[in-house]
């Protein structure tokens, strides 16, 4: 890669190592949910920068619009109304989208070489020209993020504006957020910012405030500051402890080499059986017996 910012760390369905002599800075986007006012500026910026316009939907009686992530809506605000004894009604708004996992289940599941890549900076990106539309990435993702387009049968999701980041810009959503709820930079810096913010929130009575950077997927390159980090599921079912499903690991882990070796063993075993034991031919005696039978028949 001529651009160091586009160095690749992992590539779907590829068994050999990617070029890896350079050490690139790991980036992250930090979404401070506690500062979000739900204005959807980020959603609009995402549409504009990426040049995608979703179909106009219907009102479902909530502010969620569109209602779910789609191939043309890579980020969606999720509005959860939560009632509790201590705090009464709370409005928890979470910007949903790809988490850019350090250990991405989508990439692990993808059968098409190079359809999903992870840049050395941590961004997980789909390369639609290599995508075959099988949807295994959906099966592999612990966050239910990728969507297949009905128009072209390719998988799409948030790119973390890999094109902008590659040339030193921040993602479009970060640029546009009016409350400064989204920050972007090195993962280390983002953790520091989060830490400070968490201290602040704790002082303000959110005893369980914390950073969401789930280790089950090796950490993520999109992190949240949550007021209730002990209960991420309050935020429209953000998984408390996401990890690549054991089923996916089994499918894409041992099954592949085991089955391949097993099939090779059966094929080679058959060949050597033939070579060592020889073919199973009809014996001379049986042939003679049958000849005799036929002769007798003829005589009768």
């Amino acid at each position: 890669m001529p651009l160091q910012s586009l160095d690749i760390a992992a590539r779907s369905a590829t068994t050999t190592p990617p070029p890896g002599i350079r050490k690139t800075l790991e980036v992250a986007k930090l979404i401070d949910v506690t500062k979000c006012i739900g204005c959807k500026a980020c959603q609009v910026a995402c549409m504009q920068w990426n040049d995608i316009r979703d179909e106009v939907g219907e009102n479902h009686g909530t502010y969620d619009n569109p209602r779910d992530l789609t191939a043309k809506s890579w980020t969606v605000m999720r509005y959860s109304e939560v009632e509790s004894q201590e705090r009464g009604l709370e409005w928890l708004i979470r910007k949903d989208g790809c988490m850019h996992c350090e250990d991405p289940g989508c990439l692990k599941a993808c059968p098409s070489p190079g359809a999903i890549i992870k840049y050395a900076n941590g961004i997980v990106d789909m390369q639609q020209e290599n995508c075959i539309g099988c949807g295994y990435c959906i099966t592999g993702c612990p966050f239910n993020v990728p969507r297949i387009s009905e128009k072209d049968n390719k998988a799409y999701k948030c790119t973390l504006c890999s094109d902008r980041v590659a040339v030193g810009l921040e993602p479009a959503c970060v640029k546009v957020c009016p409350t400064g709820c989204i920050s972007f930079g090195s993962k280390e810096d983002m953790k520091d910012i989060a830490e400070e913010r968490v201290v602040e929130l704790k002082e303000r009575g959110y005893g369980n405030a914390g950073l969401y950077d789930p280790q089950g997927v090796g950490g993520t390159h999109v992190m949240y500051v949550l007021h209730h980090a002990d209960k991420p599921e309050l935020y429209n079912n953000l998984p408390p402890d996401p990890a690549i499903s054991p089923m996916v690991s089994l499918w894409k882990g041992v099954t592949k080499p085991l089955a391949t070796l097993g099939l090779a063993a059966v094929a080679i075993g058959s060949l050597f059986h033939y070579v060592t034991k020889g073919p199973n031919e009809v014996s001379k005696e049986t042939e003679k017996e049958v000849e005799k039978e036929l002769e007798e028949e003829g005589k009768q």
Partner: protein
Amino acid sequence: MKRDPNDLQRYTASERANHWVVGISFILIALSGLALFHPAFWPLSMLFGGGVWTRIIHPFLGVLMVVSFAAMAVRFWKLNVMTPTDWEWLKRAKEMVNGDDHNMPIMGKYNGGQKMLFWALVVCMALLFVSGILIWRAYFSGFFPVGVVRLGAVVHAAVAAVMIALIFVHVYAAIWVKGTIRAMWYGTVTRPWAKQHHRAWYKEMTGK
């Protein structure tokens, strides 16, 4: 191998045609499935016009295979009911594999090994069909919870590998036992072949 008026008819034309449809669809589905299974087999996708075509064609071939196999199973299941002699045969299969079939129990149209293969294929086909529906993203996956789809993916891959291995054995056995493959091509076998390998069936056919 010349045709001989004394040859015995083992398969009718429509049985053979049915078997070939299953066989051809199996070969295509195995090649396209392997391409999607392990990167080592990815180049096989080129046989189908690239990855996208492989993904599109594979499940339809699967339906063809399952349907044509079902037709075959309906024709043959009665002949494949296991008997005590079959179990006895299986116990001694090792001798057979070692090339010594002198003491093998007398077999009808199919031996214990062939019957087991038949039933194993029935199970594999059923599992592949159900799991295949679960992971057929274009039409069906959306109707099932992701946990079920994941299970489907594992089952599909594992069972497919088992089935490919079974078919390897099936094909090899046909190559190994000389005079067998012609039954698949034009339906007949020689009398000595029948007498040696399926004596009870030979008796049934010839009265000897």
